């Protein structure tokens, strides 16, 4: 013990202390993880429930809303006028230049064609959850004839692109596929 005031070689005791300390830290972290991870979505929520929808009855100008993963997904059969409005917008006027389409490339631009269903420019499938703070925008409202979020005033156009207000991104398009001409599977 008399040598303890000189900066000596690390002793066996130092080694044991540090090793035990490091082991303890790892142990605490390993024990803590289950208590953090239990808060994440459980297996039943995570199960990628896909939904099949028949859209044969949805006439132009009509829309249906279905639930997918606890979130509303709108499927809108757009009128010719709405498609035209979506197409005429210049891309540089858009607040969010990306398509946000899970079925397209992540860097695809937000043109009307990249937002609508492939080969069916009148069909628009998207998650109707405002990208600001998660409210449900109202159909067929707002100054761009698309969607309007009543919570904090975000306005989306007929292709679901953010045009005005605090929301940062276009309404996201979930992964989906046409099973037949009128049947869609979402998820």
């Amino acid at each position, binding site marked *: 013990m008399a040598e303890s005031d000189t900066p000596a070689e690390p002793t066996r005791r130092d080694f044991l202390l540090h090793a035990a300390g490091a082991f303890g830290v790892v142990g605490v972290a390993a024990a803590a993880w289950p208590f953090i991870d239990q808060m*994440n979505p459980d297996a039943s929520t995570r199960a990628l429930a896909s939904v099949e929808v028949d859209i044969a009855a949805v006439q132009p100008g009509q829309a249906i809303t279905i639930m997918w993963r606890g979130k*509303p997904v709108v499927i809108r059969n757009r009128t010719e006028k709405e498609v035209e409005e979506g197409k005429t917008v210049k891309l540089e006027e858009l607040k969010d230049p990306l398509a946000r389409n899970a079925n397209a490339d992540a860097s695809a631009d937000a043109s009307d064609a990249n937002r609508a269903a492939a080969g069916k420019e009148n069909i628009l499938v998207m998650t109707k959850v405002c990208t600001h703070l998660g*409210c449900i925008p109202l159909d067929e409202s707002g100054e761009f004839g698309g969607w309007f979020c009543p919570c904090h*005033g975000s306005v989306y156009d007929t292709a679901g692109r953010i045009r005005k207000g605090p929301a940062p991104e276009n309404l996201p398009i979930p992964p989906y596929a046409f099973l037949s001409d009128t049947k869609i599977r979402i998820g």
Partner: protein
Amino acid sequence: MSGHSTYVPKTAIGKWFEARLPVVRLLHDTAVSYPTPRNLNALWTFGGILAMMLVVQIVTGVVLAMHYAADSRVAFHSVESIMRDVNWGWLIRYLHANGASMFFIAVYVHIFRGLYYGSYKPPREILWILGVIIYLLMMAAAFMGYVLPWGQMSFWGATVITNFFTALPFVGQPIQTLLIGGFSVDNATLNRFFSLHYLLPFLIAGVVVLHVWALHVVGQNNPLGIEAKSDKDTVPFTPYATSKDVLWIVLFMIFYGWFVFYQPNFLGHPDNYIEANPLSTPAHIVPEWYFLPFYAILRAIDFNIGPIDSKLGGVLAMFGAIAVLAFLPWLDTSKVRSGRFRPIFKVAFWLFGLNALFLGFLGSVKTDDIILGAQAVVWAKLSTFYYFAYFLVILPVLGYIEKPKPLPISINDAILAKSAH
């Protein structure tokens, strides 16, 4: 201030106990012999009122939890059955729901009292910061409690507030998913909020013990903002402060009772009597009244600031509005505590108070409503600017340029001078 203990156990059992666990001595020193400045006004009774409200909320809350079911399929109906079927359920629920509002009224009086009389200044920095922590915990508890009835405002309030976290770059989305336990607010969210809502009041009680401990180390501030120097400046806590506290607690209870018995839903929102519907957002979402000023600040930032987009900017401003309070002891550079002796500070303080009320009003209207010829959001920007300017510009600068009025020599002197007139 704490001084040495004057407790002397008189009975045999008192002496026996004292030698084993001197808890009676602790209580005696804390609530009986503790010297309080003799010039405290009624604003100093709000600490006691808050302690009472915490007890009321815990007692009513424990009882409500006996009848409430935290399951998204039945939560709404269990609250309705508390209102209609449970014996006295309506009373206990109204006491709890209005109790939250009363708790916030009292805490706002308590905070503004501290702001005016400089109660945050040395040596009371830790005392003040513990208060800010209690306030934060109160807000979390109130928010989670409001979700439990599973009405429309509960659901959409929970959705909007948990979405604040998605504003953070990269980690935001995973954090939000972790908090709500799913891809949208649902049963998992309700269950954990119930668990935490039950936990938080006891955490608050723990921090309150630290708050009172810190108070008893540094002693109470007082309307003159000068330290008590001698026994002439103080009176014992009992009977002087206790009787004054009891008087004001009774007056406060009358105010509270008026809401509970005559206006039980005045401070709530009718939409919360509609069961939560994930497919329909109410046309006009507003938080509870006690969050409105912060809600106005959130909505005021509708523009990008450099790399920070409007969403993150709003969330940062809102949390910043609370966080700035913790730094107040170092932001206010004045050596003088009490606003009574600070002529310019007084003006800035009252403007700050009015501005806070105005922010509350702006939080309750739609952003594009026209107020006095301008959109509400324009006023919200001006008000938000003043809110931050008060802390970050006015208080730091005033300490250097303001000439305070002369301070009395002691509390006793000031009182004698007053009675001589």
